[in-house]
């Protein structure tokens, strides 16, 4: 993985330790078992926020640590490994919109609350089942926002929505004129369609014309970081399994056909990690962000798709059972693959940015 500074190593180690010990997949099973639409443990998120994770990309002046996206990605990756259910990714993305586009007043009002974990926020862009930021019908008139948003991540726990309207991004608080319809997806996390009906909306006026694109790039890289953790976890689990399972008096890991497949997956995972880390770093450096974010999410889509399928196949029958974790990664994988750009969407964007 990327060469880290001391601060980042500490952060990564802390996240890894916490996720491993305090938030293994059994914690997600509990959340799922509880069956609440919010689908995360408020206590767990409070702990995460206390450790400073909700404020990693928030400026110090507003209660964050300003460590940047590479650092945020490290934490998100570790949480992805154990499928930790939380609104951390959603809030980080929403916070980035306020950091980029908010007035001083808006920043002062919201960022400290997001960083402290007091407020959960999420970004609502798409209005259909496919990611398509060019097809926004939501509009604002006289400070009132009206429109429908589809499959909004972490909508149930959110107090604040960053909503894309035709003419820009707006802050909308939970409350009057905001109605959720739960959309339960295979990942059994929080998703909802939201009908905004004349909800009070506060425009993010800074950040220029590219604000939405810039925020989407951040959504892509942070989501890709979660996917990286998932892919790494499936790979590691599968490799361990192959080293233990005996068939035909032979450890599975010694079958050459499986060795070569694992070598392929290892190479794919290396490609994915390079792309995701470079995407996070690009956001921090501000150089080539749009392109780097697309490469990151496209590689994340491609590799997690392959690894999540191969993980099942290589585990054999037990991988098909709900008792084993590997299927959970598969089900979450497809949801994230479809969020903020499917592979074909991303390739189209890449070609556009490359001028062909």
């Amino acid at each position: 993985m990327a060469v880290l500074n001391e601060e980042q190593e500490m952060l990564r180690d802390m996240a890894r330790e916490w996720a491993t010990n305090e938030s293994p997949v059994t914690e997600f099973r509990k959340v799922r078992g509880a069956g609440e639409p919010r689908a995360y443990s408020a206590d767990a998120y409070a702990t995460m926020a206390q450790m400073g994770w909700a404020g990693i990309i928030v400026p110090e002046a507003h209660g964050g640590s300003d460590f940047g996206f590479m650092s945020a990605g490290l934490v998100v990756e570790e949480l992805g490994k154990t499928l930790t259910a939380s609104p951390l990714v959603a809030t980080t993305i929403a916070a980035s919109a306020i950091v980029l586009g908010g007035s001083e007043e808006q920043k002062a009002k919201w960022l400290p609350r997001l960083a402290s974990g007091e407020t959960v926020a999420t970004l609502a862009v798409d209005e259909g089942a496919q990611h398509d930021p060019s097809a926004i019908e939501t509009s604002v008139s006289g400070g009132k926002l009206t429109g429908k948003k589809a499959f909004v991540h972490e909508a149930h726990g959110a107090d604040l929505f960053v909503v894309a309207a035709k003419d820009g991004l707006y802050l909308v608080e939970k409350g009057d004129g905001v109605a959720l319809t739960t959309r339960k997806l295979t990942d059994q996390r929080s998703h909802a369609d939201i009908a905004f009906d004349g909800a009070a909306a506060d425009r993010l006026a800074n950040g220029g014309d590219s604000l939405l694109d810039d925020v989407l790039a951040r959504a892509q890289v942070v989501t890709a970081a979660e996917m990286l953790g998932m892919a790494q976890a499936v790979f590691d689990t599968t490799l361990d399994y192959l080293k233990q399972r005996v068939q035909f008096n032979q450890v599975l890991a010694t079958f050459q056909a499986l060795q070569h497949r694992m070598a392929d997956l290892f190479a794919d995972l290396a490609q994915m990690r390079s792309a995701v880390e470079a995407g996070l770093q690009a956001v921090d450096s501000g150089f080539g962000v749009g392109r780097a974010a697309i490469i990151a999410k496209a590689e994340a889509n491609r590799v997690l798709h392959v690894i999540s399928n191969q993980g099942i196949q290589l585990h054999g029958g037990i991988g098909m059972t709900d008792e084993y974790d590997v299927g959970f990664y598969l089900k979450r994988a497809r949801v994230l693959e479809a969020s903020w750009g499917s592979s074909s969407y991303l390739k189209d964007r890449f070609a556009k940015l490359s001028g062909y």
Partner: protein
Amino acid sequence: MATQLEPDVHADEEAFRTEVQQFLANHFPDELKGKANALAGVDGPTDETPAQTKWREAVGERGWGTPTWPKQYGGGGLTKSEAKIVEQEFAKAGAYNPIGGMGVMMFGPTLLEYGSEAQKSEHIPPICRGEIRWCQGYSEPNAGSDLANLQTFAEDKGDHYVVNGQKTWTSGGQWADKCFAIVRTDKSDKHRGISFMLIDMDAPGVEVRPITMISGTSPFCETFFTDVKVPKANLVGEEGQGWTIGKRLLQHERTNISGGGSLARLMGQSLGEIAKKYGETDADGELTDRVLRDRIADFEIRWNSFLLTARRAVEESKAQGGVSEISSVLKKVGTKLSQERSELLIEIRGLQGLGWEGEEFTDGELEAVRGWLFGKATTIYGGSTEIQNNIIAKRVLGMLDHQ
């Protein structure tokens, strides 16, 4: 190739066709029209409606649910062409065959081949009448692809065995009356120490625990045997013949997985048509997403090619009077393609294609998700793709370890 016998045969067949039509008119209730056989699936219990029960009993009495099985054991005793007529007329009337399940698909044909007279008389008739459900006791936690490694042991106690051990992937074990199982009767010989026996699921010492799958359904169980008494009358064939009989049964299973039957049904609807419902089309009615369109066409060309291969395998087998060597690729290719199709189907629909539950999703959408998840098993069970590759390489291509 007209022969002089043709007119008579024809007349006979027409008479039989009328008989079937008459039977349907008398016994098949309109309310079941277009419904599927609730007993056929492995993924649910069965609470029959009175109409369903009546229909099952009517067909069972004739033996037409197992049309070509011998009449003496409750089968239809029909010729192949008569069986075809039953199938055709049922289809015309929108009537399902109410007799099904693993008893019909796997166990019955095997017992007819290897069972004693007494066993056939006892077990075949209830299968023909759809009264008894069978489950399969094959896999164990440490005997999956390497089935011969099974450890469940049946100790000889004179007139009966005492069985101890654990089976897994027992399809429909929680709803089954009986289990056909392979168990070890001799620990000194891996293959020849295996015997094929029939176990009552309600015998003392049999415990069943359903396994929840990633699709959320529980069609399989873990089955635990603790000092279960099995009378010697329930041994099929000789002691030690279990591997041979068990493998024969697996051939029936494999045919069912790859054999186009369920796959062809699954593929009923063209992906292109579905994509048109979910995506934009241009003035010519073509998908505007050319990349998706290309991928769908790519899939459907290979799928057509697979159907042609399945047909060719049948034709070659007939012509050669043996199994065609390309039959060996059908399971591998068919299951791979059906998984690819499921992935495409989901992708076409975006997040709407990933629904777990809720009224905002159509039944078709939710079924596609369950099918996508459950379908991951097709490349694992019934001889995994890896095992198929070993078989093809070694048996068909002769890439042997020692040469």
